[in-house]
């Protein structure tokens, strides 16, 4: 179990504590033909308001995020969504930091409260991939720039291979992760991919897409949205359910391509993790963090990020995975919700990681609840493994 938090550094001592008091998700599925984009985001927002027992009038500002506008073919969709999200007459900010956007969006919203600019903020992220084609959206040719030839998998597969070479990880580690996350998804009412007949053998016999990444080791394309209500101490005191307290939040970026960049374990990810652990007073993440919601779009990224985030030494991540530690009943459960491998509304996927971490410390994660989770990490990454956003949430208010 976690140890008490260290007090914050004086640099950040005047920040207002931030609490998560409402969380809402839509069902994540291949195509939500029953709702427009506006209907989709409103569904998540209304569920978050219901959880917080608040109304649209209680919201001071809206912070919205999603991945590229080309994914739905709507330029700056926050303009059109202002009405659906009750933002008329309020401030509305639109964040876009590639795949990490859901996490970054939540952090921008949290800062509005920490800076005492607003008391209660609705933050939301979405993607409605069925309205367009993400592969097309990622493959628009631009002169003098290298195209992302075969979508995200084509970009990431060589880095997975590099990880395997570097660490000597055996071939089956990726399939263990996929099998675990898909089984966890069976316990999550909002998860997209649910196959009760899935076996490890089925994962291992699925077609090879981008060697070494098999079909069953990749994320789906989902429609979906996730919303959170963040508030200050006063708002938290009125919360009908236990809030999750934000103990730390950080973003880090590095360039896409340059000589010396470590694609297997990017420095920006290490720095971002070090920052949130420092803010939250965490000195031994492996012991002090009770649940991890990690951005794992391709199964092999679980062992890779276990090392990048400091849960395992270099070359040791795959051993943690193989030992079962990251299973739902292991002592460092990773992606109890089923993760990005089970639901991937791209722009929302980072926020879902943050929200699921918050659900765990609120004790409101339902069938995929980790018993007595007190401290949880939400993690998101994007671009060419270059944008990172993380937060640490806890059941106790920071500083006691």
């Amino acid at each position, binding site marked *: 179990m976690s140890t008490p938090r260290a007090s914050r550094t004086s640099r950040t001592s005047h920040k207002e504590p931030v609490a998560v008091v409402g969380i809402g998700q839509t069902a994540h599925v291949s195509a939500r033909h029953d709702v*427009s984009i506006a209907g989709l985001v409103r569904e998540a927002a209304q569920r978050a308001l219901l959880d917080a027992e608040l109304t649209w009038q209680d919201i001071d500002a809206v912070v919205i995020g999603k991945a590229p506008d080309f994914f739905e073919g*709507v330029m700056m969709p926050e303009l*059109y969504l202002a009405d659906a999200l009750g933002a008329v007459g309020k401030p509305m*900010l639109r964040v876009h930091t590639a795949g990490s956007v859901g996490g970054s969006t939540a952090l*921008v919203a949290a800062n509005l409260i920490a*800076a005492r600019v607003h008391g209660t903020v609705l933050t939301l992220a979405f993607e409605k991939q069925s309205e367009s084609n993400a592969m097309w959206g990622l493959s628009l040719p631009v002169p003098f720039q290298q195209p992302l030839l075969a979508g995200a998998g084509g970009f990431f597969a060589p880095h997975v291979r590099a990880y395997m070479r570097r660490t000597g990880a055996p071939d089956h580690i990726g399939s263990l992760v996929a099998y675990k996350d898909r089984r966890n998804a069976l316990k999550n009412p909002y998860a997209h991919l649910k196959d009760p007949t899935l076996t490890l053998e089925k994962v291992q016999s699925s077609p090879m897409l981008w060697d070494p990444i098999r079909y069953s080791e990749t994320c789906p394309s989902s429609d979906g949205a996730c919303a959170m209500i963040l508030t200050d101490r006063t708002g938290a005191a009125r919360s009908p359910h236990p809030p999750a307290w934000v103990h730390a939040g950080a973003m880090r970026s590095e360039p896409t391509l340059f000589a010396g960049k470590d694609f297997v374990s990017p420095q920006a990810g290490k720095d971002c993790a070090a920052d949130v652990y420092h803010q939250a007073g965490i000195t031994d993440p492996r012991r002090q963090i009770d649940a991890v919601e990690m951005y794992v779009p391709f199964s092999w990224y679980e062992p890779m990020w276990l090392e990048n985030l400091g849960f395992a030494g270099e070359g040791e991540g795959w051993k943690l995975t193989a030992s079962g530690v990251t299973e739902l009943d292991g002592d460092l459960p990773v992606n109890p919700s089923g993760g990005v491998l089970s639901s991937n509304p791209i722009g929302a996927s980072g926020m879902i990681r943050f929200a699921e971490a918050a659900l765990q410390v609120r004790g409101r994660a339902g069938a995929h609840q980790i018993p007595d989770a007190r401290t949880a990490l939400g993690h998101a990454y994007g671009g060419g493994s270059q944008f990172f956003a993380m937060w640490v949430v806890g059941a106790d208010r920071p500083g006691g």
Partner: protein
Amino acid sequence: MPPTPARPVRDVAVVAFAQTDHRRRTDELSEVEMLMPVLHQVLDETGLRTSDIGFTCSGSSDYLAGRAFSFTMALDGVGAWPPISESHVEMDGAWALYEAWVKILTGEADTALVYAYGKSSPGSVRDVLTRQLDPYYLAPLWPDSVSLAALQAQALIDAGDTDERALASVASRSRADARANAHAQVKGEVPSGDYLVHPLRTTDCPPVSDGAAAVILAAGDRARELCSRPAWIRGIDHRIEAHSLGVRDLTDSPSTRLAAERAGAYEVRLDTAELHAPFTSQEVVLRKALGLGDDITVNPSGGALAANPIMAAGLLRIGEAAARIHRGESDAALAHATSGPCLQQNLVAVLEGDPR
């Protein structure tokens, strides 16, 4: 009862500003190449290096660049190594500045680099901006940005708020003032053009521009170290309105008024206003909403009628207002940025210099 202005918990100022020369096309430059000189200029002005900056935030649009994740290329130009604390808004750079201002208020950073860029030349801006509209009911009709602005202009004329002669005088004043702005694209005498979409003539509409801008923010004593006369952000706020033009009074801008109230604009004796009004008629709307009298110098830079690099034009207004304070030409200035069709979303910042 009007809302009380929000009091920031820290003093934050604009301490440096740079912009490109804005041009009709820059075929020979990538976005990064266009941006690099202004980034270097604000860093040189303050003596800061990338590694000294506490937070970096940018504004741009994938739809202008014609590719997804276009801002990742710009990041390569920032010198983001070792890794930096960084974020991006898919909005005008004025909102990137807002995010950076909030970050500094939390105490997590003392300085911030904000930049924005837009190349309109590769495509048709009028067509591209239709993709901002409600995708199910409005965008399929391809109503372009000039036509929507013309609806607003006609509503103003019908309401008796302006006439075509008054609109022409806004255009000629802006472009006369732009003569003093080395970076402006359209300046000096421009003959009143033909109707583009009635009642708007070409001179009532902004030029199509490629350009970039960068700003450095700093808190408290750090600002005083970096700039001899910092432009303190006394207040900054932004508000959005309904999207559908049918439910809005196009002759008014309640979101601008609300943002101005929250930013404390009505409690300061302003001498300058930099308004992001791409169309002459929109200056009429904004002047009315903000209650600006003739004693206030409006758009001495020439405004968006002299150069309108989309996604940077709002940040340019903040930069121009701050630069006048830096130079001692203004003591209290309002800066405004807009987004969306017919002034749907508006940001207001109030900047002040220390007493002289």
